[in-house]
């Protein structure tokens, strides 16, 4: 994909349709559920060759400015790619790397670091993960216990970062830590002495990384951002991550609902397709309505996010997406199991893959209920300030 000059809204629509087509083409030829199953629970977790192809299509650089080798496009485009790829349940860490890490690094202050690393991220040669979280359920990027103490112009870092998506083959981590003057965002290559990575297996066959830092040294050149700039980079990355996580949930639910509807049309019991039974029809309709709601909210909200609103509005939009998409995906993937009956409970049948991906995506970056509470707080109504 190259950045084509699009004139006006019609051009953008055209451009996005082409993008969706290229994603569909990629998922038809470049991946399948057999590959997804092979990689489940493996040490590799995802395929760097596939990752490289995604880079060649330009997708890893969608949110990276053109001056750093990216396309400088927006969340609207990234949502199209993420949604399309999530339909195929690809295990590659698009949101973790091309959204969370890329956004945080692009928003950082260290121009030399950005010049050296962002083009490599875009090219698929370097795969960084954002290591920002420390405690389960604590989603404030400023809640940091990991300490960064000054050392020879850089920092010596101690602490444990957890729930790092995409960590399995990550080449480097963007680590948030607390220094005397406030938050810092640090570039920690995987092989750094004192950095120990462990992987926790997830329901969907992927993993979260736990990164223990014991006197890990970060030179001055590895300080990506500090103070309010570090905070802003983390906040923006979190919000964009939530939005694209919502797009992934949308892709998962799209396909899970299609599978259910196909089954309702073809599975015969009592001499009739089970989709002719009103009890099942009405439940399918309700899921369709949730799917459409999620789709409408996702599209409207990413468009609003691309107009780069103030932080409170940005966060509210991200939470609105995550809350709706997580809720809809949970309903749709759970009902997919029920619609399919006993076969739905087997590992060999694909509905379970969708259920498990939805479970992981929902819990990662905040559950629907957490996002609804944040939305209430940010938009006042219902928020006790």
């Amino acid at each position, binding site marked *: 994909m190259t950045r084509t000059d699009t004139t006006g809204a019609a051009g953008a629509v055209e451009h996005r349709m082409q993008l969706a087509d290229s994603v569909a083409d990629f998922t038809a030829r470049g991946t399948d559920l057999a590959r997804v199953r092979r990689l489940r629970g493996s040490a590799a977790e995802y395929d760097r060759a596939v990752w490289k192809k995604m880079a060649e299509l330009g997708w890893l650089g969608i949110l990276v400015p053109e001056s750093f080798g990216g396309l400088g496009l927006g969340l609207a485009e990234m949502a199209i790619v993420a949604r399309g790829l999530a339909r195929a349940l690809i295990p590659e860490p698009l949101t973790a790397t091309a959204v969370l890490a890329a956004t945080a690094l692009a928003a950082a202050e260290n121009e030399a670091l950005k010049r050296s690393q962002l083009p490599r991220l875009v090219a698929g040669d370097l795969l960084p993960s954002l290591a920002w979280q420390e405690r389960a359920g604590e989603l404030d990027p400023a809640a940091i216990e990991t300490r960064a103490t000054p050392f020879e112009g850089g920092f010596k870092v101690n602490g444990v970062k957890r729930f790092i998506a995409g960590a399995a083959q990550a080449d480097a981590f963007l680590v948030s830590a607390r220094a005397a003057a406030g938050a810092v965002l640090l570039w920690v290559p995987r092989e750094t002495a004192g950095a120990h990575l462990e992987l926790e297996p997830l329901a969907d066959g992927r993993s979260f990384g736990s990164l223990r830092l014991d006197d890990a040294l970060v030179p001055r050149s590895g300080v990506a951002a500090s103070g309010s700039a570090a905070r802003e980079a983390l906040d923006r990355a979190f919000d964009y991550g939530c939005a694209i996580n919502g797009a992934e949930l949308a892709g998962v639910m799209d396909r899970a609902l299609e599978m259910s509807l196909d089954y309702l049309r073809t599975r015969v019991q009592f001499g009739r397709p089970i989709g002719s039974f*009103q009890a099942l*029809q*009405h439940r399918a309709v309700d899921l369709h309505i949730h799917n459409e709601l999620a789709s409408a*909210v996702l599209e409207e909200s990413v468009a609003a996010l691309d107009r780069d609103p103030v932080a409170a509005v940005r966060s509210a939009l991200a939470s*609105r997406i995550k809350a709706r998409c997580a809720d809809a995906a949970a309903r749709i993937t759970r009902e997919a199991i029920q619609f399919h009956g006993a076969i739905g409970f087997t590992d060999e049948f694909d509905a379970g893959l969708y259920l498990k991906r939805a479970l992981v995506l929902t819990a990662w970056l905040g559950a629907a209920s957490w996002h609804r*509470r944040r*939305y209430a707080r940010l938009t006042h109504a*219902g928020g*006790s300030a």
Partner: protein
Amino acid sequence: MTDWNAMSDEDFRREVRAFFEREYPPQLRHILHRARWSEMKDWWRKLYEKGWIAPNWPRNRGGMALDAGKMVIYLEEMERHGVARPPDQGITQVGPLIMRFGTAAQQEHYLPRTLSGEYIWCQGYSEPNAGSDLAGLQTAAVLDGGHFVVNGQKIWTSLADDATHMYLLARTGKGAKKQQGISFLLVDLATPGITLRPIRNLAGHEEFCQVFFDDVRVPRENLVGEQDDGWTVAKALLGFERLSIGSPRRPGYAMNRLEAIARAKGLFDDAGFVDRFTALRLDLEDGATLYGRFVEQVKRGEPLGQDVSMLKVWTMETWQRLTELLIEAGAEQGVVAGVQDVAGVEADFLNPFYYARPATIYGGSSEIQRNILAKYVLKLPG
């Protein structure tokens, strides 16, 4: 005459809003009950004189000839200001049908009188044994010389006692399908043999009636469209109705009350309440986003498909849940009739709850809408 469609959306919205704010009787804003003719006749007169009573009618018939996009703005501004619908089925329903299917004589006679408010219309579709299954209707119209002789009964007829005329569906024949053999008739309610029995609803108001027809002689020239083909006539109106009925503004008012009461009572300090409130608020806001998609479709001049049914299901069911939380928020006061004072905020708890009940029944019940979506949108087998 102004070409409203040539105005920018913003200018048009401003003009409509200013007129409603200046002219609409304040005591009738955001009323919950179905507005009666006695309450609304002055407002009707005002709209008629301004040429605004029929936003959907063509200009040569005295309407505003609004295109779909401007029509949506007009309705949005009505809802925003809490402007009640007068008994306007002549304008929204039977007028357009007469224009499309009626004879020149019918158009000349009925349209100006409908516009001026001389004729007030009610709809005679439902029967005791033909609700959701409307095509099962049994009211008979038998041709006898120059007249149809009508026998049977209609029910759930909104504001029949305000109306001067009824448009009704009656069985004139039998076809292979039960939708065949139905005819569309215009009936003067002053015709001998018609008896009205008002029905009290859950809110304690008599807003609909049962209407009995006992050898009622309706002139043959009051037939609209072909004899036995009334189903085609009646069906011609759907779509847009499901869009306006699925508008998120109406539950928006209940949300506004709920928020005011919750604030006054300090309910936002209760995390459990905040969770439920915010979930409902997002259900409403996200529904508004979905509604916006259909509005854009209308504005682009594209016809609405059967998928618009999802709006009615979602909006009306959200509205109901909202009014349920409103009652709960009122605690003991939530079940006291009339307007209550809750820590300085005025609230009527019961009426919103009552009036949200039939919202999933009228205009095609939620179950019928789901049947439509299952069949035409999801293409599930019959």
